[in-house]
């Protein structure tokens, strides 16, 4: 028992059990859902996120959870939302956001996303930089985003821990933390680390320098883990707590998920080998502009790719971007995700998916809406390790739900109602309901809700 507590304490919030037990780990989630009743969203086209589409279907929400999805549901006493002509999907999840750490306005004083002081900063946590009053949270909500991972930037080989948030306003980041969600570890391949540190005549200055840096850190982490394990078994002294190695050890123990910024297929292939060398899993490659070149390898390794629909060419490692990337990854049976990395892009991830659907259709890959919606719901939930709680409209899951005023893959469609844990968190045009951040008071956004 004492040993177990020691391990939990050591891994702090990396220890999900401690949080779920209402334990005292530092920075544990204090998220509280809004009060909610029983709601029946009736008569909609429902994309469940499991790959299924049900026409003229109902979604029943009770006690903040999905109670049932089907046709002609019996829901005595429920508030009925007539959703005829509407489409319903799970809440949108963005696995790659910098809201709060690179907030609006973009000022030097609030630029807190990159600890560019050393190539290995696995000790820093993005949540300690999140400014909850970033107006980007509320505009993302208007785009149907109910949860997101906030990541450190990509200047470093190991940028620090990412945090998954529920998209409800909070006075501090703990109020927003997704209960029980594992931490992520941001890693970065390629141009950014070598440019940032190479310019200072410091390692890494090349891609081979990058790889040497990852391996050196994993060697330290493995040694630290061995010492901790031995001490837990009564052999040797418990090493002094080391925040950096604690995070890396969390990865080796499978408690922290790797989110690896990596554009090129050849570099991703090398990263997969490093993971094998040290016995960890690459959960998700981010940006992954060339995943289409190694889609079979990614499927084999059970590694997700989080991708833009069409960003390309802004640097060499993005030069081979193609519109069909996400579709080709999906077709290979690998986990494909559309992500934003942008406070503007996060507001319409559905549109990004639609552009891919159209491009794929040109070359004979017909991707129906019920399949594409997985890229921004269930696959994203898998990447973040929250797929037991959200990502699909299945009974028992948290009722994070979006009602769209049309097909979500049309440019003209807007999110009409967004539910988080069964409570209406946003409604198109409802100034009384929609959140306004402290920062936005007195601006046009305050006058019209999230605009």
């Amino acid at each position, binding site marked *: 028992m004492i040993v177990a507590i020691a391990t939990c304490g050591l891994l702090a919030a990396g220890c999900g059990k401690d949080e779920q037990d209402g334990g005292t780990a530092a920075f544990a989630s204090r998220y509280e859902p809004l009060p909610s009743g029983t709601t029946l969203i009736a008569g909609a086209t429902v994309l469940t996120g499991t790959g299924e589409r049900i026409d003229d279907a109902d979604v029943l929400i009770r006690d903040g959870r999905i109670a049932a999805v089907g046709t002609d549901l019996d829901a005595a006493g429920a508030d009925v939302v007539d959703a005829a002509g509407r489409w319903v999907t799970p809440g949108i999840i963005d696995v790659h956001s910098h809201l709060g750490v690179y907030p609006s*306005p973009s000022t030097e004083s609030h630029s807190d996303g990159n600890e560019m002081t050393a190539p290995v900063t696995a000790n820093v946590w993005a949540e300690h930089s999140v400014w909850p009053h970033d107006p980007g949270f509320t505009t993302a909500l208007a785009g149907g985003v109910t949860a997101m991972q906030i990541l450190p930037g990509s200047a470093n080989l190991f940028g620090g821990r990412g945090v998954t948030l529920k998209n409800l306003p909070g006075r501090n980041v703990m109020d927003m933390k997704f209960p029980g969600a594992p931490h992520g570890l941001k890693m970065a391949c390629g141009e950014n680390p070598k440019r940032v540190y190479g310019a200072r005549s410091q390692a890494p200055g090349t891609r081979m320098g990058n790889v040497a840096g990852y391996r050196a850190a994993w060697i330290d982490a493995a040694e630290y883990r061995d010492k901790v394990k031995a001490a837990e078994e009564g052999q040797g002294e418990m090493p002094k707590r080391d925040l950096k190695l604690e995070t890396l050890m969390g990865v080796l123990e499978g408690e922290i998920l790797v989110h690896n910024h990596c554009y090129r297929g050849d570099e991703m292939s090398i990263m997969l080998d490093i993971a094998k060398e040290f016995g960890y899993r690459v959960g998700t490659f981010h940006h992954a502009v060339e995943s289409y070149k190694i889609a079979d390898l990614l499927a084999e390794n059970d590694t997700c790719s989080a991708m833009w629909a069409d960003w390309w060419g802004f640097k060499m490692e993005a030069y081979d971007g193609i519109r069909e990337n996400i579709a080709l990854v999906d077709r290979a049976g690998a986990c494909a995700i559309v992500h934003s990395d942008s406070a503007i892009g996060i507001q319409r991830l559905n549109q990004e998916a639609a552009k891919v659907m159209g491009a794929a259709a040109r070359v004979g890959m017909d991707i129906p809406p019920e399949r594409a919606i997985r890229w921004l719901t269930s696959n994203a939930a898998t990447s973040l390790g929250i797929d037991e709680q959200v990502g699909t409209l299945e009974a028992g899951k948290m009722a994070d739900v979006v009602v769209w005023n049309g097909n979500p893959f049309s440019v003209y469609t807007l999110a009409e109602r967004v539910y988080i844990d069964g409570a209406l968190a946003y409604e198109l045009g409802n100034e009384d309901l929609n959140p306004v951040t402290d920062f*936005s008071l007195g601006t046009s956004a305050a006058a019209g809700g999230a605009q």
Partner: protein
Amino acid sequence: MIRQVALIGLLALAANAPAATTAIVGGNVVTVGPQGTIENGTVLIVDGRIAAVGDDIRVPAGAETIDASGKVVTPGLFSPLSQLGLVEVPLSAGPTDGAQRGERFTAGFDVADAYNPRSTLIAINRIEGVTRTLSAPAPAYPDETGGGHIIAGLAAVVNLGDSEALERRSAAVVVSLGEGGSQFTGGTRAAAWLTLRNALDEALDYREHKGDFERGMRRPYVHSVADLEALQGVINGNTPLIASVNRASDIEVLIDFVSDYSVKAIIAGGAEAWMLADELAAAGIPVIVDPTANLPRSFDRLNARLGSATILARAGVKVAIGDGDTHNARNLTQAAGNAVAHGLDWDEALRAITLTPAEIYGVASTSGSLEVGKSADVVIWPGDPLELTNYPDQVFIKGERIPMISRQTLLRDRYLQSGTPPAYRKRQPDAQP
């Protein structure tokens, strides 16, 4: 010998003659001109120009006929602001040509001399319907290698075809004002206005006293002769200033400035322009709007919002749509579609990415709509061009059928089958297995 050459020339002409006439028939033709939208219409292209548009056009014998029934036919898209042809890979990948550091030249810096019609970006964007753009210099913001000037230089209208791409040199002069301008002028936007006024004052003085200046009988100018010559178009009212500006108070100053100097201006960005919609309409200042830029990314943009294109257009402001992106200039249709989602009329939105940009850069007599006599820049779409899932079936630039191929489609085709692409297993022709 001479006769033989002449004969070959004639034969070549004869062979080309039928191909020079193309009829696109049966489509839903959105002309963006006075003819409006024509169902089951025909667009007749002869020698690179639009020869006829209507629902009762006789197709000449020998014309190449393209069946567009069930399709939508529009003018080519016109990106109102990009750096196409100037930039390949902007970060850590060698020089780019779109921004000039140092203060040696200001308005005289002309990107037209750097324009590369064979850039890989051209094909990638034109196969998605972009046929023209204003290729514009960008401000060289100060960094450790120095900085540029609030006046970034001269922009050019180009077509994205394979030949004779330059349509209009000196189509606009790009200038940074507001917070952007303040970065060049010691940290205050007031000094940016001072700098701009001084430049125009010198250009005016130079115009009136050119002879004296050349004889050395006039005070020295801060600007070079090349700059002052370039600014003549601005003070004569032929070349608009593209003012990169967002804050409402700066826009108020701009309105007065335009009136004081009798120059033309176009606002790029204009996050808070919607707050002065009536004033801008009265002043005749168009705005290039990015319809999705709704965040207060700086204190100049505190009142950024969705729907600003709608507010501006309803007040009578000429609205072009574009976010200034280069690699993805092709996403113009998505931007226009989002403006429609927030209230802009569909026809207005399509106009904002076709005819309006042509108008504000003075090239509407030759492009921007499907009207007789204009350049045959035509796009055939499988459906609504603003819908995200629709990509062009075929693009024409100056009547030329553009190969619907780009470096990206070639990469795609190489990897369409999974595993190692066959291209990686090529053998020398004479090698035996």
